């Protein structure tokens, strides 16, 4: 499946009675890379989860290549091409590594597993272990690999670098960049390591209390130190 564009219009969503995102609109063109920044608890995770259909939606549209998927259940959204790597990793704890990966295949042949093992050789070593036995970083790798195996056309990454060793971080960001470059995936990235996030993205969006407060290119944000201090925190960029 080639990359698809994503368009969000007037999206409001939250948990139970609490509304976290209010009236949010933005769009991402096919094959591009968007980084979403913001302080703790500003709604980044909520946004990605809402796109995937895992929160309560109060209104708005989510268009995947023009088609509104907002009314679909999350499994159908996944089949339409959305893929999420959640912040909490959510690996299947009682399944082995290999079974975890198989669960993400979305009907692709079993041989596709090699892609995942090439991306993270560590997983190949541990493929017979159960999910709960993995170290934190291994779980993160597994979660990422599992979603990517399904070849989503729009990939939603929620802090995929958390808990990973620096040597892997760089490789992984490079891998994401490659995926986007081949035109196979549109990527939305939430990441606390702002440097990495800015290096990766062609455009950036800043969230504050469930609203988009700034949108622009990475360069523009790098250039405006005040903006960074205001919305993200002092001394985040070096």
């Amino acid at each position, binding site marked *: 499946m080639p990359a698809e564009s994503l368009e969000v219009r007037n999206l409001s969503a939250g948990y139970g009675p609490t509304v976290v995102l209010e009236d949010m609109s933005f769009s991402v063109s096919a094959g591009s890379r968007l980084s979403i920044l913001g302080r703790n*608890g500003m709604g980044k995770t909520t946004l990605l989860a809402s796109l995937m259909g895992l929160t309560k939606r109060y209104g708005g549209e989510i268009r995947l290549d023009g088609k509104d998927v907002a009314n679909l259940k999350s499994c159908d959204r996944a089949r339409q091409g959305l893929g999420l790597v959640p912040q909490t990793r959510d690996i299947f704890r009682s399944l082995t590594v290999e079974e975890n990966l198989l669960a993400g295949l979305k009907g692709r042949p079993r041989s596709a597993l090699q892609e995942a093992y090439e991306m993270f050789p560590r997983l190949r070593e541990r493929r017979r272990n159960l999910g709960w*036995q993995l*170290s934190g970083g291994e779980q993160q790798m597994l979660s990422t690999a599992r979603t990517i195996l399904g070849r989503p056309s729009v990939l939603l990454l929620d*802090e995929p670098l958390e808990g990973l060793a620096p*040597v*892997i971080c*760089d490789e992984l960001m490079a891998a994401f960049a490659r995926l986007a470059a081949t035109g196979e995936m549109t990527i939305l990235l939430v990441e606390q390591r702002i440097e990495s996030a800015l290096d990766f993205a062609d455009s950036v969006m800043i969230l504050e209390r469930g609203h988009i407060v700034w949108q622009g290119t990475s360069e523009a944000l790098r250039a405006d130190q005040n903006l960074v201090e205001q919305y993200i925190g002092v001394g985040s960029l*070096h």
Partner: protein
Amino acid sequence: MSDLFRVEGLSKSFGGLAVSRNIDLAMAAGDRLALIGPNGAGKTTFVNLVTGQIRPSAGRVLLNGEDVTGLGAVRRVRRGLVRTFQVTRLFSDMTPEEHVTLTVLQREGKASRILGRFRGSAEVAGEVETLLRTLGLLDVARRKVGEIAYGQQRLLEIAIALALKPKVLLLDEPAAGVPSSETPRIEQALEHLPSSLAVLMIEHDMDLVFRFARRVVVLAAGEIIFEGLPSQVAANEKVREAYLGNYAHARRVA
């Protein structure tokens, strides 16, 4: 230098996989040690072994010269060996305030009293408030933990550990999930710790590691491959290859 904390020849394997191999490590009062290493190197396992969650296949753990290897996790905590969890383990139904109050009461041996109100003394309340303020949790103090953002939960993990007034504190990725803008809070909290305390921190955020640590230990495949000053780490070829990667040349470290 008398060691506050020391492990000797600590080993552990799961099935055929040796996760810790003959680890020797010592910390003195006031030590600020960072334990880094690739994913799956055995860092969390090390903490589990030290705090008694799992039993080592060989080796000893000494606290203040006393062999605590045979003691259960609870007794080690009571002797001052305290940890935080890499994945938060909190009571989703309780508020941060309740968490910390319970911890303080427990430390003072009052937690299993049947008589007496939970929010009894002003002293305890004062201590709880101070702790929560230090970690910037005051405004969510009375919300259920299940509803607060993940980053704040990480901070609460640290607050609980601090409330136990540990002698040796083991932090397992305290900043994972905490945005870089908030990490200063953690650093601040750590800076204000009494100097008698030895702190070991596992972290993949190298900026934080280099600001915090006075000594760095690198673990790979269950073995210590490097031990030394932060300034020496990035120069070490083995460490660079196994762990740091481009970080070493890219950032202002070194």
